[in-house]
Every structure is written in C-alpha cells, then in structure tokens.
C-alpha cells in the first residue's frame, strides 16, 4: 500500500502547524538519545554560600568535550525580568567547545553575564541566561535546609526552578558560526547544542539549590530527592522572536515537517501491527493526558483549543478501547482516516505524534535529515522561464493566490525589528508608524504580487531578464524555486492578516524543540517547560525513551 504524503495545503496552514505536539522527532529527545553514552562530569563548582559563583559541567566522548560554563550572580529583586529587554539575570551560561582554561573562564566572566551586549568568540557555541522562579527556589532551599523534601504539589504546578529567557547559537554575538562545527556527527539534527545547554543548566539548578540549602544549615540539610529533580525541567519564556525564524529558514522548516510527514506515511503503510506496538501507542496516549491537564493559560483562544483537545482525546481513547481493533490490515491508516473525519486538528496532530512512539526504526533515520545546508539553495535558477515560475506559483501557492490583499483585513499587520532590542515585532500598519521598514515576512502578499507581475510578462522570457526589471520581487522568486523542491518549506497562510495568531508559529517551533507544558500567556508569548521528567545526566546510560509519559 502506498500512502501519499499529506498535502502541504493542509499541513502548512498555521492552525494545523499550531496544533503540533512533541514527538520522538523532537530535538530534546533526540539530543538525549545521541548523548546517552557520553561521559558526564561536574568539573568545577565554585559557588559561595548564596549560590553565586562559577561552575562547569561537561559531556565528553573520545577527544570531544563540550563544557557548560555557568555564572551565577546576585540580582536585585527589582531587576529580575523575563522580558527580552532585561539587562541582568540570576544566571548566565555559555557552552564552550572543549575544556576551558582559567583564562577562558576569566574572559567569559566579563562577557557572558552581559548577554547581547557581551562579545563571545568562535570557541563558544551557545549562550543563554535564566532567572529563578523565586517562589519555588526559596521554598526548596527552605525545605531542604530543614531536612525535608519540598512540597511536590507546588513543584508540579510550576515545573522548574529556573526559566531561561533566550538561547542563542549559530554566530550570534560572536559565537562560533555553524560552518565550523557542522560536520560533527553528534550534532546532526537541529539545535542539538542549544538542547545540551538547557539540559546542563537544568542540572546546575539542582546542584545550586542543594548547595545553598547545605550552606544554610550544614547539619540538617538534605539533597533534593533525585525523583523530584527528574520531575522538574527548565522553564522558558518565548515571545515573537521565534516566529520569523520559521519563515526565514524555508529548507530547514521543510526538513522538520518532511521528517514528520514521512514518519506518518510509513506508519500508515504498516500492514500488520504487533500487540506490543499497539499497546505502546495506547499506553503513551493515555499517560500523556496528564501533561495536557497541567497546562494553564489565560488566553481564551488557547483555553478553547486545550478543552477541545482534552474532549477529543478522551473520545478517541474510548473509541480505541471499545470500537477499534488493531487486528486488521493497515490499522494506523484506518485510525488516521478516522481521525481526519471525526476530530479537530489539535487532536489529529496529537495522535500523529503518539503513533511515532513504537517506531524508533522509522523515526531515528529521519532525525539525521532534519538539518539543512541552506546556502545550497540560495542561488536563483535564472535560466528558467516566466512560464515555469508561474506554473510553480499556481501549483504550490494555489490557496495564497486566492487572497485579496486589497482588503484591509488581509493586509492589516506588518513585521518589524524593534530598535531597542533588535527583536521581531508585529503591529497594525494602519495604526502604527514604521510599515515602510517592514521585514520581508509578508510572503503570501509578495507571492501574489509576483504572480500578478509575471502574468503581464512574456512567458518565454528567462527569469534573468524578468529579474533585471523586477528585483523588488527577488526575495519571493528565490522562495518559489525553493518550494518547488521542498514542498513543506512555506507556510500556506497569510502572516499579515487580521486573523494571524502568532502563537501558532511559536507552538510549531516549540513542538519540534520538544516542549511539554505550553502555558500561553496571550496570543504573542508563552511559557513552556523543557526536559520535565527527563532522566538526570547520571541516569542517561539506561534511560526509558518514553520518559515523557511517565
């Protein structure tokens, strides 16, 4: 049986992309799998009684070492802010390529805490900062120093001791460019070093809280129970900064979605599913419900989505238990077809993620294909013709071409970079100044403009000739030739319309990161939790790959 890949016009709609959930493909899970047999070490832990100072944690295999350097500083209560406009943080981190010397640490001590205004070097790979959840951190210190474990209910509600507010890589602020490290096999797969940083930061937070408690009451203090540690992750506040990323990296986006789509296709093509496979699928699905029930949000849009997901999932589980049998040919295909007819997008995509759980043999090889050599596809094939380009647009952007951008509601917003923090923002072009400095993220509108201009040009003309008079459309011409080769490289929606929900773009990216606890605070930012429930570094050698659902 040959199941076709799903139609990009369905999958690449923002509402669908915003319904994606973590899966075996997610970067934090694939990071753990890759690094499970690396040697973990705490190389330096030089903190004072308040937990301020320097620490180094590392992963090592053969001659390769990655070291997380942590700087914990005193922070005035009034200076603590999760917003990207903050200038001071409780802690700052960098992942160093190799073993840092004392000189490296001294140099970085002056730069890393400054974050965006500091300067890093080619020896550093990623950069981040994190703030305490003061309420939780203080409670844990208080409890441990009195010899008792903290209130599990409170910890479960928040999910972390610290939350990061940004993780930078790939050449930002002087960090190593990707070309320097891209051939290392252990980092095939996107964002692996960012994941490593967050994972090691998580361990730092446990060691720091134990250290502070011990110093407060050396005789009575106990360490935080490893089972409690395991139940905690690292929080992350995320705003619009992430949204343009998926527009600006079309081949990378394609490779993420393509891996997911190929996985689904192959699973639907399995003729006979064993009992252990179907049981694992059902087991993960049922256990995962507790993750959803822990999501809190004040956003009405998200409350509606979460409620609908929960309702659908409970209905789906009842269907699986009472009406569906895996003792038939191509059961996952039948299940998928049933989902498409009876359930909302959020539930369909949730189930798709769960279907991957029993099939490491299908998913694992695809993970290595999720990075992209974007420069390879930068040049425009200018020998092609106007007719060919028009045909590409008609085939690949058929829905987009139907949008009328003369209508105010379809052209309402514009994306810009804020001068204060060099961060992407979205604003109403009719109410705010600055639309003349619009970023090239209105792809749908510009594709439509390209199509209209092409329609007035000679079909046999080459793109080289067309471009000589229409270089204002160059950015979308490049994209159109990319989407011809990479079907999932383009969001098939209007990113500047009245209906845009930017959080859909964030959720797509975060689902691939492997975020568990979505806590959308509005339609523009959210808090998430990473590595909650993940094995601790010392447990990595024999960990359960389905830890997400335990």
């Amino acid at each position: 049986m040959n199941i076709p890949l799903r139609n990009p016009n369905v999958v690449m709609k923002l509402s669908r992309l915003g319904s994606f959930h973590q899966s075996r493909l997610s970067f934090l899970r694939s990071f753990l799998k890759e690094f499970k047999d690396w040697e973990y070490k705490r190389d330096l832990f030089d903190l004072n009684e308040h937990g301020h100072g320097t620490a180094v944690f590392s992963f090592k295999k053969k001659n390769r070492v990655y070291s997380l350097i942590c700087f914990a500083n005193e922070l005035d209560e009034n200076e603590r802010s999760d917003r990207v406009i903050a200038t001071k943080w409780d802690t700052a981190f960098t992942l160093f390529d190799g073993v840092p010397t004392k000189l490296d640490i001294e140099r970085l001590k002056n730069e890393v805490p400054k974050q965006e205004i500091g300067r890093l070097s080619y020896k550093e790979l990623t950069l981040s900062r994190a703030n305490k959840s003061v309420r939780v951190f203080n409670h844990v210190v208080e409890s441990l120093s009195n010899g008792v474990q903290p209130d599990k209910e409170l910890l479960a509600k928040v999910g972390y001791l610290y939350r990061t507010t940004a993780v930078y890589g790939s050449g930002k602020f002087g960090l190593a460019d990707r070309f320097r490290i891209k051939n290392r096999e252990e980092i095939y797969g996107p964002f692996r070093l960012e994941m490593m940083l967050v994972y090691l930061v998580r361990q730092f937070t446990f060691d720091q809280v134990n250290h502070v408690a011990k110093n407060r009451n050396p005789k009575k203090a106990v360490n935080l129970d490893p089972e409690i540690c395991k139940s905690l992750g690292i929080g992350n506040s995320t705003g619009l900064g992430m949204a343009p990323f998926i527009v600006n990296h079309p081949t990378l986006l394609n490779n993420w979605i393509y891996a997911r789509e190929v996985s689904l296709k192959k699973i639907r093509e399995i003729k006979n599913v064993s009992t252990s496979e179907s049981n694992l699928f059902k087991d993960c699905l049922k256990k995962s419900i507790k993750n959803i029930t822990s999501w809190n949000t004040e956003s009405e849009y998200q409350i509606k989505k979460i409620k609908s997901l929960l309702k659908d999932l409970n209905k789906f589980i009842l269907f699986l238990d009472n009406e569906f049998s895996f003792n038939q040919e191509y059961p996952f295909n039948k299940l998928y077809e049933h989902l498409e007819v009876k359930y909302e997008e959020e539930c369909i995509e949730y189930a798709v993620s769960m279907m991957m759980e029993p099939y490491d043999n299908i998913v694992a090889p695809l993970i290595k294909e999720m990075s992209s050599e974007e420069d390879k596809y930068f040049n425009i094939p200018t020998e092609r013709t106007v007719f060919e380009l028009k045909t590409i647009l008609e085939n690949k952007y058929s829905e987009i071409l139907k949008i009328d951008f003369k209508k105010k509601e379809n052209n309402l917003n514009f994306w810009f970079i804020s001068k204060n923090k060099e961060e992407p923002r979205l604003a109403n072009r009719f109410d705010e100044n600055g639309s003349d400095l619009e970023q090239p993220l209105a792809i749908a509108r510009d594709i439509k403009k390209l199509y209209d201009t092409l329609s007035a040009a000679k079909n046999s003309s080459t793109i080289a000739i067309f471009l000589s008079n229409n270089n204002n459309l160059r950015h979308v011409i490049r994209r159109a030739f990319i989407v011809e080769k990479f079907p999932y490289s383009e969001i098939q929606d209007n990113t500047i319309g009245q209906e845009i929900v930017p959080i859909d773009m964030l959720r797509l990216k975060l689902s691939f990161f492997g975020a568990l606890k979505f806590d959308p605070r509005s339609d523009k930012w959210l808090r998430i939790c990473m590595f909650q429930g993940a094995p601790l570094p010392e447990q990595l050698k024999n960990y359960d790959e389905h830890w997400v659902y335990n």
Partner: protein
Amino acid sequence: MKSLSEIDTVSKRSSRAAGYSWGIAEEVGKNVRLLEFFSLPGIKNLNSFLNNKKNIKLENLSLITEDNKTNNSQYCPVIAGVNFLDQIKSLENLSEINFKNIAYPILFLPFVSRASEIVGKRILLKLDEKEFVMNFNNCIYSNFSKQEIVKTAERVSIKIIKNEDSFTETEWKELYKLSEETFVEENESLKNSGAGAGLTDND
C-alpha cells in the same frame, strides 16, 4: 571578532536601509560574508560604499554585453553584480566581458566568484592592475592582499576560462609513468589465479 553570521545579517540590513530591495540585500549579505571568509575587505568596502552612495553618480547596469561603458558615471557594483550573476548562463560563451568604471569593485567580485561555481569554470577578473582567479567559489587566487577600500576600477575585464589542463600532455605522461612504479608486474601464475581467470567472456 565578528562571526560570519553577524556580518551577513548586518550587511543585509544596511543594504536594505540604503535602498536596495530585500532580495538584493540578501545577496549583499551573502557576498560580504564570502569576501570576509576569503580574507578580502568586505565590510570596509560596503561601509564606505553605502555611506558615499548618495555622492556618487551611479548607473544601474541591467543587461550585460561584451562591452559595458558609462560616460560620466560609474556602474553600481551591486546591481551590475546581481545582473552578471543572473545572466551568467548567457554570458559564459563570450570570450571577454569588459566594463568601464565600476564603483567599489570589491563588492562586484563575489558575484563573479559565485558565477564561477554556477558555470563550473574558473573566471579571471581584472580590476585595473588587480587580478583575481575565481576557483568555483571555493577559493580566490589574487595579487591583491591589502585590506583597503577600492573606490573605483576604471577598467574591469572578465575572462571565463575554459576547463582545460594547465599542463602539457608530455608532462602528464612523464608523471603517469612514474606513478606506474607503484604497480606489480603479473607473472603467469598470478594471471591464472586472478579474479575472473579461467572464464570466457564470450558465453
């Protein structure tokens, strides 16, 4: 030290700010990154060009021919470069392409380097007395190694070099003969026991 990623981003944004379209600004970002990667003065020249752009009488060269001449103005290196890159497939069979007066010609150079990769041929670029051999966009061989701003090139010529050997047949044969000394002469017994021995290829 600035990373190449920072160089790309800042070059792109500043080019857009100077009035180029986003698509062209993306090209400039990639190009300046390339120049700096090859240790050529990309940022220096771009900064000077964009800051002086308003004071230079620039001409946009759209369709490139064998001889491209301006009179009282200079060709914009970005627009001439973009069009050279776009039109390289139709230009590759010309024996020589000449330009008179290109402003900030170092910014024109990476377009030629990228064109070399597209056509799979080396390209010799002369900017007055400065010579550059573009090797498929993998490296650039040049007699110019100064980190300086080059404000103009009066005579610019481009030769697309045919894919031919750089040595004589005699030199090749001599070297080949020497390489044969790593081979072992086969005696009858080795021939009879080698792979495929004893079979006829005519069945």
